[in-house]
C-alpha cells in the first residue's frame, strides 16, 4: 500500500546525473521480510537522505525480475540494488546495468560470478547453523536419547534454502554420523507452501510411526505447519521445532512452548548498511567496507558488509520486541498476554 510517491523521478528518465536508486526485492511469499521490513526500512533511509528511489518486487518471477531491471535502467537509476532470485538472472541484470554505467549492490544474496560493487548480507549458512545448534540445545534440554530428527527444508528451487540446509547440516550431520542423533525423513517444501508442509510433515509422522523427536524446519511458517500437525496428535511441546524470521506467529509459538527457537535477523541494520552504500554510489562516491567475501565462481573479492543473525529462545523474545522488529500488540494479544508477562515482556 505504499507507493507511488516514491516514483517521483519519472522526469529524470532522460536527465543524467540526479542520484536515483533502484531496489529489486525477490518475492513476497518465501518470507514476510521483503515487503514487511526491508521495503519499510530502505524507504525510511532513502527519504532521510533525500534521494529518489524506486523499490519493486519481482514476485518470485525471474523474467519479471529482469524486466524490472530493464525498466529501472530505462527510468534512469544511477545505482541498482538487487536481491537476486538466482545467480544467472542476477548476473545478467548486473552485467547489463554495468554496461549502462549503473552502479550495483548485491543485497542479502551474493550473485555468483556477478559484478556487484558491494555485497551486504546476513550469512545464510550461519542462519542454518544457528537453527542446527538451537535444535540440539532444545533436544538436550528435553533429554531425549538418540532422537530422530526430521528436516522440513525450504523450496527446492530456492538457492537460499540450500544454503540454510548446508548450515544446519554442518551441525547435525556429525551427530548423525556418530549415531548420537538418528536422521529422520528429509523433504523440501515446494514454494515454502505451508499447506503442503502440513501434509508433508503429517506423512513423515505416519511413515515413522510417530517416532520424530525434533523438527528442523527452515522458517516459522513451515514450523507452524509442523506444530499444527503435532497439536492434532497432541504432541506439541513435546517435539522441538525450529524456525526463522522471528515472525509474530513464531514468537507466539515459542512463548507457548510449541516452538523451540527462531532466528532473528536484524533487518533494520542490514537495510541501514545497504542504503548507506547505495546512497554513496548513487552519488558517485566510494566507500570502504569492513570485510570482503570471496565469490567462489568469479574468483573475485567482493567488498562486503556481513551482519550476524541471532537465535531467539523463550528467554530473549523480549529482545526482538525491544528492537522494534515486531510490536508487543502483534505478539501479546489475547491468550498470549500472560505468556508475555511470564517471559518478561512489558
Amino acid at each position, binding site marked *: 500500500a505504499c507507493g507511488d510517491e516514491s516514483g517521483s523521478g519519472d522526469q529524470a528518465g532522460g536527465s543524467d546525473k540526479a542520484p536515483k536508486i533502484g531496489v529489486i526485492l525477490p518475492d513476497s511469499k518465501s518470507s514476510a521480510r521483503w515487503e514487511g521490513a526491508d521495503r519499510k526500512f530502505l524507504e525510511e533511509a532513502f527519504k532521510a537522505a533525500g534521494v529518489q528511489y524506486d523499490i519493486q518486487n519481482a514476485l518470485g518471477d525471474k523474467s519479471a525480475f529482469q524486466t524490472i531491471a530493464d525498466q529501472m535502467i530505462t527510468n534512469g537509476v544511477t545505482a541498482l540494488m538487487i536481491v537476486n532470485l538466482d545467480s544467472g538472472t542476477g548476473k545478467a541484470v548486473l552485467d547489463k546495468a554495468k554496461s549502462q554505467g549503473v552502479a550495483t549492490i548485491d543485497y542479502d544474496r551474493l550473485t555468483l560470478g556477478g559484478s556487484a560493487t558491494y555485497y551486504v548480507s546476513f550469512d545464510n549458512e550461519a542462519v542454518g547453523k544457528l537453527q542446527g545448534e538451537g535444535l540440539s540445545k532444545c533436544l538436550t534440554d528435553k533429554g531425549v536419547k538418540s532422537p530422530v530428527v526430521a528436516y522440513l527444508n525450504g523450496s527446492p528451487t530456492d538457492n537460499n534454502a540450500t544454503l540454510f540446509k548446508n548450515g544446519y547440516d554442518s551441525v547435525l550431520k556429525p551427530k548423525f554420523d556418530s549415531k548420537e542423533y538418528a536422521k529422520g525423513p528429509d523433504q523440501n517444501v515446494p514454494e515454502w507452501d505451508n499447506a503442503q508442509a502440513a501434509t508433508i510433515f503429517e506423512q513423515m509422522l*505416519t511413515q515413522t510411526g510417530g517416532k520424530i523427536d525434533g523438527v528442523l524446519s527452515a522458517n516459522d511458517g513451515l514450523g507452524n505447519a509442523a506444530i*499444527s500437525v503435532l497439536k492434532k496428535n497432541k504432541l506439541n511441546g513435546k517435539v522441538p521445532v525450529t524456525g526463522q524470521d522471528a515472525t509474530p*506467529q513464531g514468537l507466539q509459538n515459542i512463548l507457548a512452548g510449541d516452538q523451540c527457537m527462531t532466528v532473528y535477523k536484524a533487518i533494520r541494520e542490514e537495510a541501514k548498511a545497504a542504503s548507506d552504500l547505495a546512497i554513496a554510489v548513487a552519488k558517485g562516491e566510494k566507500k570502504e567496507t569492513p570485510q570482503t567475501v570471496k565469490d567462489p565462481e568469479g574468483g573475485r573479492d567482493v567488498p562486503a558488509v556481513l551482519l550476524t543473525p541471532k537465535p531467539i529462545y523463550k528467554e530473549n523474545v523480549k529482545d526482538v520486541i525491544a528492537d522494534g522488529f515486531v510490536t508487543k500488540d502483534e505478539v501479546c494479544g489475547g491468550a498470549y498476554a500472560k505468556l508475555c508477562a511470564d517471559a518478561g515482556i512489558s
Partner: protein
Amino acid sequence: MTTTVVHKDGPGAGTPPPTLGSHVRNYVSRVRGGDIGALPAVLGLVVLCTVFSIMRPSFLTAGNFANLFTQGAAVTLIAMGLVFVLLLGEIDLSAGFASGVCAAVLANVVTVLGYPWYVAVLAAIVTGVAIGTSLGFLVAKIGIPSFVVTLAGFLAFQGIVLMLMEEGTNISVRDEVLVAIANRNLSPVLGWLLAAVAVAGYAAVQLLRHRTRAARGLVTDPIAVVFARIGGLALILGAAVFILNLERSRNIVISSLKGVPIVVPIIAVLLVFWTFVLQRTSYGRHVYAVGGNKEAARRAGIDVDRIRISVFVICSSMAAVGGIVAASRANSVDPNTGGSNVLLYAVGAAVIGGTSLFGGKGRVLDAVLGGAVVAVIDNGMGLMGYSSGVKYVVTGVVLLLAASVDAFSRRRSTATGNR
C-alpha cells in the same frame, strides 16, 4: 388404431417390470457398452491404494486413513464448487486464491479484529459470494472469456491476500471451534449415530421413490436392487466409521485419538446438498442444459446469464469453505494459502473424477472421488521419502496411471458410439 392401442405401443407404456436378473444383465451390458459412471475412478483408487499399501505398510493404518480426509478436504471442497463452473464449460482459475482471500478475511476477523468464529465464517463466505458475483458478472454480462476473467482474478486475489496479510506475515487462527474443523474428531458414538441417520435417510428416499413410481405404473428397479443399494451404503459407511473409531494415538498414555474427523460430515453434507441441487431441482437441470447446449437452453426460456453468474457464485463460495478448512488445518493463514498447486489439483480432481471441461457432463461426486485420488497420491508420495525432483516426477506418473485406468475402461464406450 384406438387411442389405447397407440398408448400401449408408445414409449412410456407399462412393459413387464424388470426382474433382478434382467437388471443385473442390463447393468453388465451397460458397463460393457461403456456407460460406467463412477467405476473407473473407484477402480483407479483401488489400484493406487493397493500399490501404496504394498510399498509402504504404514499406508494401511487407521491413522493414515483418517489423515487422508483432512489432507484432501480443502482441494475436494474447491473441486466440488468447480464442478458447477466446469459443467457450463467455463473455468475458474481464481478459485485457489479466492479461497486464500476468504481465509485471509476469516483470519483477520477472528484473530486481528477478535470477533467470534461464526462472524468470521460468515464474513469469509460473504466474501466468496461477492467474488463469485463479480466474476460471473464479468463473464456473463460483459462477455469476457472466463479464462481471462479468472486469470485476472488469479493475479488480483493473490495481491489481495498479500495486502490482507500486511505483505507477507502469517496470521494465526487459534479459535477453538475453527481449529476443530480440520483437527478434531467426532466422538465414536456420534460417528455411529450420523452413519445410521444417513443410511436411514437414504433408505427412506429410495423406498419412497420406488413406491411412487410403482404406484404410477412407471418402470422401477426391482425392489431387491433397491435393498442391495441401501445395504451397500450401510456397509461402506459402517466400515469407514469402524476404522475411524479405532484408536490411532501413537501413545495412548499421552492422549486418545479416535473418531470420525469433523470435516468428513461437512463434506458429506455438502455432497448430498449439491447433488440434490444438481439432480433434483430445476436449477440443476438448467445448469446441465446450459452446459450441454447454451443456445437450446436460451431457446427454452432459461435465463442463461443468471445461471452463468450463479455457478461462479457457488464456485467461489465453496472456495471460501475450502479456505476455511485450509486455515483450520494450518492453524494459520499465509500468503500462499490457496496458491501453488491448489487450483490445478482441484480442477484435476474434478476432471479425473469424470467431469468434462467442455461442459454438460459431471457430478459433484466426481469431485469427491477425484479429490480422493489426488489426496491418496499426495498421501502415498509423502510416505515414500523421495527427493523433491523424483517426487514430482513420480507424482506425475502416478497421476497418469490413475487416469489411464479410466481411459482404458472408457475405451469401449467410444467404440460403441456413446461419447
